[in-house]
């Protein structure tokens, strides 16, 4: 039997080599440049014992029941204009079957400044919702019981402040912090690496992250304290392997920092979560997700000595790739997003955001947001793909590609270690250069038509038909400015200034800052006031611009 099999393979190879190949000049490597064979066979399968879902190292998924037990959470990232407007969108999405909230903040909020700061001009409410103080947060979640839903908040430098606002709103609703569920992005390292929404230098930034992890371990135990993110690294232009490697390296840097604080690994590791991109190269993405679980499990158990299984399990959120969308023939983005979402599901994601077709032009309209959500529902309820756990497990190709991803990630870990770890590597612009090089390389491949983007460098149309897009009313800028000034007028200013003084003193010392921030938030100190208080002590970071 064995001899005959080998003969068949040989015969196939000869047939393949004598067949004419396509001569369109398009790369046959993955979008990240990993060379692919035309065919994978049993010879490519790794020699290792059979793996099962829910068992170490979780290549096949962290749950023994896969999606048979529970589907992924459909969590559409959303926020625009004012807290009132976004509150309406949340209620609309929940009424349409969305199962979790995910808050997008506007640029001033992300950068820790109030709407009436001079540099907030033109930015208010444009790429997310404007939140200046607890008053806005109360409006944002008005009529949404925080005990019944989970909420993800995409915020980094000022993450601790927004978490405190959420805790404070929950308190007002009568929901104790100990029962709150949700996720704080809180991943400052990838800001230095890719998204660049840093404010403080690395050391105090890391202190705030560890403060929030430490605080939540005691007070908000069901909260995912951090969402260690590859998404922004990938969107900035990295390859899949770089996304995987840099993200997991960041994860280990947070683990190191928490251990250095004196925390026990099993007290915080189960609440670390991850966030990956689902790009258009279908199989490469699935392999990336599978490799991520395996690598993390091994490192947590073998290098860090975590004892609890929950510490070994990498749980992740996925968003389809914004950069893969095209402004040209934008309806095609629905198809792209569906392919990417399918990769995320076959890769075993815990939650998913599907981009709307118009997100390459503006924030989504109600209609496009619903189509994006419906795409997930189609996968979950119509396509049948959720019926079988890790349906691609055992595929010669997928298993070989999963191993290749793992190999490339491990090789990056060694390079990062040689540079002295993640923060020294950031300061040496290592990640930034790697990403810029990969982005430029990809752009060159597009220019040379070695990669195709439909509607951009091939299959173009002469007349693009405009689609309806969401417009942010410019009037809201002055409304939001008036609102934050009213908050400052109406609050108990003595309490507020005492709280900020207390925070300043604590920041100069070594106390956990969370209780001080929470007190300032409760006293209606604005986000900008809290951040500026911390900047007085911590200073600000400027990066060296590398091209």
């Amino acid at each position, binding site marked *: 039997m064995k001899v005959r099999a080998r003969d068949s393979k040989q015969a196939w190879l000869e047939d393949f080599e004598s067949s004419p190949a396509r001569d369109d000049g398009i790369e046959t490597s993955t979008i990240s440049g990993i060379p692919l064979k035309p065919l994978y066979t049993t010879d490519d399968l790794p020699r290792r014992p059979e793996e099962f879902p829910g068992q170490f190292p979780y290549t096949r998924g962290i749950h023994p029941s896969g999606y048979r037990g529970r589907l992924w959470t459909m969590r559409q990232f959303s926020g625009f204009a004012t807290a009132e407007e976004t509150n309406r969108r949340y209620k609309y999405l929940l009424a349409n079957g969305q199962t979790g909230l995910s808050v997008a903040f506007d*640029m*001033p909020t*992300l*950068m820790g400044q109030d709407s009436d700061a001079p*540099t*907030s*001009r*033109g*930015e208010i409410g*444009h*790429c997310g919702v404007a939140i200046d103080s607890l008053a806005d947060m109360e409006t944002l979640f008005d009529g949404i019981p925080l005990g019944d839903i989970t909420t993800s908040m995409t915020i980094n430098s000022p993450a601790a402040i927004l978490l405190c606002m959420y805790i404070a709103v929950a308190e007002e609703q009568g929901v104790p912090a100990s029962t709150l569920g949700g996720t704080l992005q809180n991943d400052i390292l990838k*800001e230095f690496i890719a*998204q*660049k*929404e*840093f404010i403080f230098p690395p050391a105090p930034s890391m202190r705030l992250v560890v403060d929030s992890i430490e605080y939540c371990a005691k007070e908000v135990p069901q909260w995912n304290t951090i969402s260690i993110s590859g998404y922004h690294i990938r*969107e*900035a*232009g990295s390859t899949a392997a770089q996304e995987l490697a840099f993200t997991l390296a960041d994860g280990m840097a947070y683990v190191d920092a928490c251990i250095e604080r004196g925390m026990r690994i099993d007290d915080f590791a189960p609440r670390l979560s991850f966030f990956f991109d689902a790009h258009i190269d279908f199989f490469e993405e699935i392999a990336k997700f599978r490799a991520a679980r395996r690598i993390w499990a091994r490192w947590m158990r073998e290098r860090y000595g975590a004892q609890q299984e929950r510490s070994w399990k990498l749980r992740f959120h996925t968003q389809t790739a914004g*950069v893969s969308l*095209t*402004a*040209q023939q934008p309806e095609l983005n629905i198809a792209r997003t569906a392919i990417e979402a399918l990769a995320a599901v076959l890769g075993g994601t815990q939650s998913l955001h599907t981009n709307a077709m118009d997100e*390459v*032009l*503006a*924030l989504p309209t109600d209609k496009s947001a619903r189509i994006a959500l419906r795409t997930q529902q189609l996968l979950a309820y119509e396509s049948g793909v959720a019926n079988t756990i890790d349906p691609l497990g055992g595929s010669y190709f997928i298993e070989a590609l999963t191993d290749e991803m793992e190999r490339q990630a491990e090789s990056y870990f060694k390079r990062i270690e040689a540079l002295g770890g993640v923060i020294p590597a950031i300061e040496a612009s290592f990640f930034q250069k790697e*990403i*810029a090089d990969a*982005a*430029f390389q990809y*752009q060159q491949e*597009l*220019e040379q038509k070695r990669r195709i*983007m439909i*509607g*951009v*460098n091939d299959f173009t149309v002469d007349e693009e038909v*405009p689609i309806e*897009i969401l417009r*942010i009313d*410019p009037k809201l800028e002055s409304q939001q400015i008036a609102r934050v000034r009213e908050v400052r007028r109406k609050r108990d200013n003595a309490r507020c200034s005492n709280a900020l003084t207390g925070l300043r003193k604590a920041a100069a010392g070594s106390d956990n800052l969370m209780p001080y921030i929470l007190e300032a938030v409760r006293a209606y100190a604005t986000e900008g006031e809290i951040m500026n208080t911390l900047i007085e002590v911590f200073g600000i970071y*400027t*990066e*060296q*611009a*590398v*091209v």
Partner: protein
Amino acid sequence: MRPVRIIVAKVGLDGHDRGVKVVARALRDAGYEVIYTGLRQTPEMVVDAALQEDAQVIGLSIHSGAHMTLFPAVVQELKRRKATDIVVFGGGIIPDDDVAALKKQGVEQLFTPGTPLQEIVDWLRKRFPEESR
């Protein structure tokens, strides 16, 4: 004749610098002198840099939706400093209607997602045919 000198800048608060870096590299490879200012530049800072470096061109990038405020603010600042000979172009997530409005306000050219790098280079070549590069 000296090569055309271009200031490329990220204005506004967003840190999405993939596009600006790719464009900066492509323009440099095409023979232009390119100075990248880095992130979070105010209109005043960009114009300062352009005057200090004696640049003929300013290229602006933005992805946060603040282009209707910040791009015209750069043009206004150039007027204020009597430096309207400096050509301003921009790129980013900019809807078609806004492109037309920005051109009326003095931004000479706008490049939106999916633009081939060569198109930007070709535009500069046409705009500055006399200068060597």
